[in-house]
């Protein structure tokens, strides 16, 4: 029977299948961070269990880490205790850890691909919903809770139910200035914040095939914002070229064997998807969110919607609550919304290509005098590469702050937070109430919209800059 890519990967990992029970799936890679793991390690200790496969487990510190003075002890004692708990657990159970200060440290979903640990056809889990990022390589990768973290640590397996299959097909060419972030925000606006519940999404079509690995990661990363269990993209030459030569990629004859297998990881002709969504790439424009969930977004040329015009009662009530929180008035053009802070970073848009895109727009210009911009590389590796390319100087000369690597203002578990009422344009993944700081107001945007917005101080598409009267640095 023809199978989808996700079904092939799933079936290849079934350890045990029995009528009336969930399947037992083998997990090829378990990524661990400090926030969702301490209670899982406590559970192992309480039951006298060990980590079954420390060699398939890797830990890093990302959520709590400050992005200033990264080599100093963490000032917040609660954050520090959590990071220290991870260090103690990694040492006790023999798990590799990339701690603050290590060249492999970074956001867990940035370092897996960077090290070549993320490969096509694997099953990958982490106690973090953005694990879907790794699906960009054709892996089946999904977020789990702490009880499941404990289960994987103890058994290297997870009980799972077979997910439904959704195809999101994007054909055609993306217009200039329209990026992967705009594609995924448009998808989520179309199907809703939980519209893909119970499904794995396969992104396909010529517009997806033309994307770089970084851009594919941005798309798969936000699968969870549409409620999907996971999102993935069939591996191809772009995938293989990205992986070849990375520290954990196969070498020599192993590489050839791996690539031969990876080439089979495609959805078969005639495979059936439970749900299909089709987008025309040529019709997409830069997308921004106006509300408090990632599905509440519009093309940047639009205006703040009027809840009174919404027919669905739940949708209307949600929009009213969102606008009250966001301090927005129906009918306001999105381009007139002024922001205080621009955040460039996160597991969604904190990779080298994202920084290059933003830097290109900022080069030789100054950001708006009333706007602050934080640039937070997704990993130490990304930071070092950006510095080798001189991007850090582009950002600082434009007036932005160049920080250390971590999750940072995506969720404000470290000191990088919005103040109450402060408004941001953020390349992260969630515009939930209070996500970036108590009372903070978030508009999700792409890296190029973030950079353009930093220059003008209000939501701006990169194409607007060519016509705008902008003052160059030193002019």
């Amino acid at each position, binding site marked *: 029977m023809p199978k989808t890519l996700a079904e092939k990967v799933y079936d290849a990992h079934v350890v045990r299948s029995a009528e009336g029970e969930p399947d037992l799936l083998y997990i090829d890679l378990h990524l661990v961070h400090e926030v969702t793991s301490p209670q899982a390690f406590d559970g192992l200790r309480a039951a006298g269990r060990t980590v079954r496969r420390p060699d398939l487990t890797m830990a890093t510190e990302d959520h709590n880490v400050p992005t200033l003075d990264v080599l100093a002890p963490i000032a917040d004692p609660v954050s520090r205790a959590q990071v220290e708990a991870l260090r103690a657990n990694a040492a006790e159970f023999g798990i590799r850890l990339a701690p603050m200060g290590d060249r492999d440290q970074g956001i867990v979903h940035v370092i897996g691909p960077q090290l070549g640990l993320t490969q096509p056809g694997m099953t990958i889990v982490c106690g973090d919903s953005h694990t879907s990022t790794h699906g960009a390589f054709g892996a089946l990768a999904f977020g789990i809770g702490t009880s499941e973290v404990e289960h994987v640590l103890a058994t290297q397996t997870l009980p799972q139910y077979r997910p439904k299959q959704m195809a999101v097909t994007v054909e055609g060419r993306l217009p200039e200035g329209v990026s992967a972030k705009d594609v995924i925000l448009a998808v989520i606006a179309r199907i809703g914040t939980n519209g893909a519940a119970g499904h794995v999404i396969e992104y396909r079509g010529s517009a997806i095939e033309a994307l770089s690995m970084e851009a594919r990661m941005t798309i798969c990363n936000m699968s969870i914002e549409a409620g999907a269990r996971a999102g993935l993209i069939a591996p191809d030459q772009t995938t293989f070229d990205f992986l070849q030569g990375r520290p954990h990629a196969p070498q020599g004859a192993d590489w050839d064997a791996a690539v031969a297998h990876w080439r089979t990881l495609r959805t078969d002709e005639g495979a059936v998807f439970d749900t299909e969504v089709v987008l025309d790439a040529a019709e997409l424009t830069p997308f921004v969110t106006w509300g408090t969930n990632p599905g509440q977004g519009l093309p940047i040329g639009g205006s703040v919607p009027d809840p009174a015009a919404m027919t669905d009662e739940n949708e209307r009530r949600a929009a009213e609550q969102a606008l009250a929180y966001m301090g927005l008035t129906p009918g306001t053009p999105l381009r007139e919304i002024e922001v205080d802070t621009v955040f460039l970073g996160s597991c969604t848009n904190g990779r080298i290509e994202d920084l290059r895109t933003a830097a290109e727009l900022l080069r030789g210009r100054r950001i708006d005098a009333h706007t602050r911009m934080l640039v937070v590389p997704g990993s130490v590796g990304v930071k070092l590469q950006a510095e080798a390319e001189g991007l850090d100087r582009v950002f600082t000369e434009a007036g932005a702050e160049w920080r250390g690597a971590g999750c940072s203002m995506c969720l404000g578990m470290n000191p990088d937070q919005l103040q109450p009422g402060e408004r941001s344009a953020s390349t992260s993944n969630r515009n939930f109430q209070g*996500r970036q700081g108590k009372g903070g107001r978030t508009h999700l945007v792409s890296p190029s919209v973030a950079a353009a917005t930093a220059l003008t101080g209000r939501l701006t598409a990169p194409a607007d800059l060519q016509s705008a009267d902008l003052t160059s640095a030193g002019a």
Partner: protein
Amino acid sequence: MQPFTTHTGTAAPLRRSAVDTDQIIPAEYLKRITRTGFEDGLFVAWRRNEPDFVLNQPQYAGASILVAGPDFGTGSSREHACWALLDGGFRVVISSRFADIFKNNSTKSGLLTVVLPQADVEALWAAVEADPATAVTVDLQARQVSYGEVTVPFEVDEYTRWRLLEGLDDVGLTERHLAEVEDYESRRPAWLPKALPALPA
């Protein structure tokens, strides 16, 4: 995990859709390394900032069943959201649709998530708003929610129901099948990556 068989209590009507896990418990409360005491973070922003928020109303203070709008629990994978609800005195959440990871986490932590059609959720909202003291019974054995003269059936898969009724821990169940795990491991391709530090090429 504490077994769940049947529960009777009062219910709080949460008339909001797409309640995300950042609202259930914000990230700053996730820094703790213990597994208990998360009730102080439960819906903390709404409790602090909105005097009319349902859990600020004295008539719903002792509720143990939360009746929420569609798409409850979207967002993060934090199981702390389930722990905060349990620590805050809730044993059951009813909604017409849950986010997958939240629902999955709830079955691991002993919080019962019950899916009812939106029309039944609306009826239950109306009933508990008319009389907050309405006793609501959620019977996992019989797979039904009942209050007053109303009884509504709900679906739950047999395996999950059995685990919840018995309060069984998944790790223990999987350990019965370790021979099959070992057999699978013996067949994995050798080129699959190991996370241990890579040697220089």
